[in-house]
């Protein structure tokens, strides 16, 4: 069962709730493998995509998920809306509420923006990535992908490499994978590692080789060149040498390791052609599974799972 009004993060979800979400995504994946990818489940429902940050795959994925379920879907991006005129998030939220959206999908550069929105509106809010806080649907699709390949999450070793400090993907995956019983290792430069991360249950590494030893899953994160300008690491060349994934390093992981990336990939930095497109890579499957997972969420948050009135 999933009894919450919103999905703001994975931190406070139970193993049962996570499993239920993943289970619900399975029939959705079946729907999108059909030649006619449309079911009437959410006919008459409205999904509003509110994006304050550029995004191609997440926004497209939510839009497709809504459309495959026959919901109406509206996209609002910050550059083309009254947001650009200086409207506050609170007022934007109330406006959308008044227009009658059932689900608001929010992508925002600042951590906690979805929490604020969720308090202001009755509609279900899905966090599509907020600052460096969480990106729960990304982690759900990662969990789904790994579970499809391995049958279960418990007992696996998952290594996440990159700019952990600024990564909402890393945080959501730490919560999701540890809750379902995996060991999570995070690895990156000390200047891009958040404080006291080990309290989350993840193990912190600074050396790629050690972090990769015996891993079942390797998740590479995108490093932004902007962080170099902020002086947080010396440069992409050295970064790639220390933290990039090549075949030699990959051989330290389990032979059947899965290579993942939330995209978009910086080719030649964290991954090269030989690792991004190698037999271990499931990067494209992640994208497909993202649509299925988001369909499941839209379905559950619009009453498919019959949630508590108390949540309002």
């Amino acid at each position, binding site marked *: 069962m999933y009894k919450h009004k919103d999905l703001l993060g994975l931190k406070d979800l139970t193993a049962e709730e996570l499993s239920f979400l993943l289970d619900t995504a399975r029939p959705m994946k079946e729907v999108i493998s059909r030649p006619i990818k449309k079911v009437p489940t959410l006919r008459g429902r409205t999904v509003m995509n509110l994006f304050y940050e550029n995004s191609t795959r997440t926004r497209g994925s939510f839009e497709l998920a809504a459309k495959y379920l026959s919901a109406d879907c509206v996209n609002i991006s910050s550059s083309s809306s009254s947001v650009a005129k200086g409207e*506050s998030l609170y007022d934007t939220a109330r406006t959308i509420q008044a227009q009658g959206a059932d689900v608001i999908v929010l992508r925002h550069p*600042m951590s*906690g923006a979805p*929490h*604020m929105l969720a308090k202001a509106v009755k509609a279900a809010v899905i966090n599509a990535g*907020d*600052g460096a*806080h969480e990106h729960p649907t990304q982690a759900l699709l990662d969990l789904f992908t790994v579970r499809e390949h391995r049958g279960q999450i418990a007992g696996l070793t998952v290594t996440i490499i990159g700019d952990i400090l600024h990564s909402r993907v890393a*945080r959501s995956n730490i919560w999701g994978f540890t809750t379902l019983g995996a060991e999570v290792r995070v690895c990156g430069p000390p200047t891009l590692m958040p*404080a006291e991360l080990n309290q989350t249950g993840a193990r912190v590494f600074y050396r790629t080789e050690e972090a990769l030893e015996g891993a079942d899953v390797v998740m590479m994160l995108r490093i932004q060149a902007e962080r170099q300008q902020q002086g947080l690491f010396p440069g992409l060349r050295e970064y790639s040498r220390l933290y990039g994934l090549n075949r030699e390093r990959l051989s330290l992981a389990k032979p059947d390791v899965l290579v993942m990336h939330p995209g978009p990939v910086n080719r030649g930095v964290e991954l090269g052609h030989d690792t991004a497109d190698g037999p271990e890579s499931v990067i494209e499957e992640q994208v497909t599974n993202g649509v299925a997972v988001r369909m499941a969420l839209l379905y559950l948050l619009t009453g498919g799972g019959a949630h508590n009135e108390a949540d309002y």
Partner: protein
Amino acid sequence: MKLIIKGGRLLDPASGRDETADVYVQAGIISSPFAPDENTEIIDATGKLVAPGFIDMHVHLREPGYEYKETIATGTAAAARGGFTGVACMPNTNPVTDNRFIIEFIRRRAAESGQANVYPIGAISRGSRGEELAELGDMRDAGAVAFSDDGRPVSDAGLMRRAMQYCRMLDAPVISHCEEKSLAAGGVMHEGYQSTILGLKGIPASAEEVMVARDIILAAETGCPLHIAHLSTAGSVALVREAKKRGYPVTAEATPQHFTLTDRAVALYNTAAKVNPPLRGDQDVQALREGLADGTIDVIATDHAPHTFDEKNVEFDLAPFGLVGLETAVGLVWTELVHTGILTPLQAVAKLAYHPARILGIDRGKLTEGSAADITIIDPGITEIVDPERFAGKGKNTPFAGRTLQGLPVITIRSGHCSYTV
């Protein structure tokens, strides 16, 4: 007008008196005992604490420039309701309080509309830009009690050294909000586990401690009295303790929010708990309490920083720092420090009245005969649930809403006249 406060427990840190005694007031001055006549008001203070009027030496009154947040009238009304007879106001007004005319303006407005004594603090540098000294001597003559660039701390150590050399001559303390900007670097909360899981940019403890150490060294060298504002970390407490052991002219304050709350109060993105310095960890709270108990921390001040509802009702990163403290401070001191045995009532009064007066060179904060009759009467047993809608100040931005406090001011007397009664 004459006044007798009868039967209360008199607490006067200046003389060390802690005993049941009556207090006599004539013409706004504490006097020797006299026989009451028909013009004498009598207050029965049985079971209550009678203390010299409290002085909050760290307040933002927002006037001139930000009257929509607070004015001298509303800020001092909040002070009176909170048991304070005096407040020292920080210079981050608009324009910045960096010249004699604004000092004079604040004093005039306080005389016209103030319900508490107002002691202006002048800026150290012009516009608090940290580039060149403001006219410190001129402001001192006009009534500035201390100098500070507060939330825009002087980054240039050379400028800070010159400010201290100058302020030593003026016999005025420099108040330092210690924050090394290159370490704070745009952070919005304490750097630790909570900032990690909330995905918010952290302000490390070192951002404060590096500048505490710098300013202590400069105080030792120049001999200028240095008062360190709102200590927030265990490391800062240790540095001040060591400075005092060495006999340096250093004093320090802590705020109720920093000795009560931790960074957990920020979850989930509660902008009322966004303050600078940020709410820290459990060990830091513990260290502040130890520092208060052993005398390392001389003063309890609020850093009263009013903001409007709309200013705080935004994304956490965008919200301004600060909370309103004047109307919850005394209740928090009694609830968190006195009733828990960390401070005796006499020690609490010293930190709320006697020490701030002494540090600022104000002839207040005592109940000896001949002193101004600024008096705060506290009922240590009374309880209240904090309700911001009842605040006299304009700002309602407090993380303490709904909290039960025990031990509250019931009467505030300024120069012999009641400025607040329950």
